[in-house]
């Protein structure tokens, strides 16, 4: 019976979500299309009040303040719609709203919670005080200073980890994009057995990551693993992939590259498919060589697809904890392959240094968002190609 009850719960949640999204759309509809109606302010007041009541209901002990905030926000939105927006962006706002609101609701609270934690001192010894109702203190920027100066692990400092993370991201990205693009180009032509190739090449992505990484870990086993046996055939012996610093890092890189290529390949393949053949035909008629065609047609037309994928790929690789965690034997294990995130995880969960890890996370976030803003400006990746 349990699965049935679970299914009912899912159906209920689904209905609730749809209803919630419908409510959001209704509110937007009211603001953006009825802003000139004589009932506008009455309607908005009703909406604000009901949203406030619901907020109060869901908000638990802080219910009243949550309700007030939600209600006021809605009234502010009404005013904004009437006096500023005036229904100008109705369609895009309404199409964007569901996704945007869902994401922000589930992300905003955790983010601000972590932000608050970073300035407090929540660790093993202060948890019991916090749980019994005392508020978190304020220690200013202490945690941030600690992150940047002390070592979260045994010997690696923040700067070592940062360097290693940049190296990790760079190496992975070059191979992901390079091999992915290469394979996509190879597959983007009439070929016998294309479907088989595509299926086989996509296996690393389709395979559950945990299983694949554990399999690779086994392959790198210094004694029984395939890698060392293969290397032994060419005369290289005794590389200890599991404990020596550089081999550990290399093995993680190899595994992550293997894991990430299929995804990039598929993204590029899809992008290549979208380029009309007529462009290439026209170019050959004009006498352009294959290489010129590649740089003048293929790359620019791939840009809107490629730039976000590379950006997101960079962010994911930067923050990829799974591969390193599983490859270095999970908890404890080695620290030579650790990048920023895995050190973060260890400090949070192994030593319960929650505030330290919150500050750590904030710093990582700042690095990444700085990079993204810079990269976006340089590549102007938010613009389309056929504007």
């Amino acid at each position: 019976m349990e699965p049935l009850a679970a299914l009912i719960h899912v159906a209920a949640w689904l209905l609730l979500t749809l209803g919630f999204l419908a409510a959001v759309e209704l509110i937007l509809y009211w603001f953006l299309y009825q802003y000139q109606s004589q009932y506008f302010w009455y309607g908005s007041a009703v909406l604000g009040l009901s949203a406030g009541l619901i907020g109060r209901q869901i908000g638990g002990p802080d219910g009243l303040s949550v309700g007030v905030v939600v209600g006021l926000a809605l009234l502010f939105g009404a005013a904004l719609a009437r006096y500023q927006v005036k229904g100008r962006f109705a369609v895009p706002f309404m199409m964007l709203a569901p996704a945007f609101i869902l994401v922000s609701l589930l992300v905003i609270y955790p983010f601000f919670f972590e932000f608050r934690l970073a300035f407090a001192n929540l660790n093993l010894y202060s948890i019991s005080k916090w749980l019994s109702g005392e508020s978190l203190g304020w220690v200013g920027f202490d945690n941030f200073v600690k992150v940047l100066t002390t070592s979260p692990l045994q010997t690696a400092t923040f700067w070592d980890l940062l360097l290693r993370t940049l190296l990790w991201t760079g190496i992975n990205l070059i191979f992901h994009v390079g091999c992915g693009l290469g394979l996509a180009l190879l597959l983007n032509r009439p070929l016998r057995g294309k479907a088989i190739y595509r299926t086989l090449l996509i296996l690393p992505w389709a395979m559950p990551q945990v299983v694949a990484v554990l399999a690779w870990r086994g392959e790198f086993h210094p004694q029984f693993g395939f890698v060392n046996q293969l290397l032994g055939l060419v005369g290289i012996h005794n590389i200890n992939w599991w404990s020596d610093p550089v081999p550990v890092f290399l093995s993680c890189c190899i595994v992550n590259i293997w894991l990430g290529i299929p995804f990039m390949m598929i993204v590029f393949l899809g992008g290549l498919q979208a380029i009309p053949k007529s462009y290439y035909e026209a170019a050959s008629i004009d006498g352009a060589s294959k290489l010129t065609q590649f740089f003048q047609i293929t790359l620019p037309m791939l840009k809107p697809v490629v730039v976000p994928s590379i950006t997101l790929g960079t962010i994911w690789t930067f923050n990829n904890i799974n591969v390193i965690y599983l490859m270095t034997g999970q908890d404890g294990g080695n620290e030579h392959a650790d990048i920023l995130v895995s050190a973060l995880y260890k400090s949070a969960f192994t030593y319960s240094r929650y505030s330290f890890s919150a500050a750590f996370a904030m710093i990582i976030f700042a690095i990444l968002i700085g990079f993204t803003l810079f990269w976006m400006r340089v590549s102007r990746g938010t613009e389309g190609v056929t504007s």
Partner: protein
Amino acid sequence: MWLVQNAALRRSGDRLYMRLFSGFNRVFFAVGLGILSYGNVAAAVELTFWEHEFDDVQKGLDKVLKGFEAANPGIKIKRAHYKTEDLRTQFQTAAMAGGGGDVVLAPNDFAGPFSIMNVIQPVGSWAKGERFTPAGLAAVTDPKGVIWGVPVSRGNHLMLFVNKKLIPKVPETVEELIKVAGEHSNAAKGEYGFAYNLNEPFWFVTFLAAYGESPLVKALPQLGTKGMVDALGLVHDFKFKSKIVPPDCDYTCAETLFVDGKVGMTINGDWAVDKYHQALHDFLAIAPLPKLAATGKFMAPMVSGKYLFLNAKLKGDKLESAKKLAEYLVSKPVQEQLIKETGRLPSIKDLDHSPLISRDPVLQAIDLAMAHGQPMPMDVEMRVVWDAIRPQLQAVMSDRADPKVAADVMQKDALSKIKEMR
């Protein structure tokens, strides 16, 4: 998504269409709201039971728990399994939100951090500590004398396993072990006489004890000692001088080699007994870890066991049910059942000399192997000590660090990490 894009259809002038779907949306919303406010129906008292046991132990536990439910109608036990590390991290996350398993069966180091966080509750007031084996009880008693868990089984310790087909006589001293293993080792051909989890501190500290040292004394790490240097030198020589161990052996590697009959001796814990027994049958010999003739001291495994911890949030009915469960698990007949079902040694003194143990050669051997053990400290600092030893041990075993230097680094590390935890 066309359902919720209805408002955008206004431009097409289709008012009826739009009104119809506004109506639908309102209905959905109301239904959803109704479901949201639907409350829970409370049933009999339900206790969630978290554990991290191996497959066959889970089955044994289930039988015991069913027996409890039969004897106590009105109490239901819901067992949830976790991986070892997950048990700790999940409990921590959940407990901080006021949740977490109601009772947890875990090794003693579970008590360390959670006693400080106060998310588990002391049991000394009702658990009657006198009836438990002292060593087992000591492992969940903090320096202030507060008892944090109810011992359910004792053990969880390392011992020596010997394949009598390859090595007929069980060595009694470490020197003898090295000699015998050497006779079976031929590094050029890749044959070795001895294999164990080389880089894990839990295994390493048994050698440390043979030099009279303990890694954590009164919550202070003692890692920079001469004993540590000697112990590091000893294990380093296993690999590089006498070459009796495969160059890079971890837990699975040692187990594979031993089970496949390629290696004559290994060090592993009581959790592996069943598997080895199935593989080697009567050729399996279990012995206490040998003595180091040079110092006259025995290698000492860390002894703890499995304990039942109670969540701090338990009150009233649930607390009473949990207490009943604890009493049930440590009652004599159930302890005997546990011995049979899980192959673990009992925690109560009453069964110290039970025929169930003395007549079973395997259990008897496990019991003997515990004799020279040292209780594992429950202090949270122990975790720091493990993490401090591990990288340096690895470095020494890869010939990247000198034992003296490694020992000093370990000690400094441990001290700084302990300070940072506050």
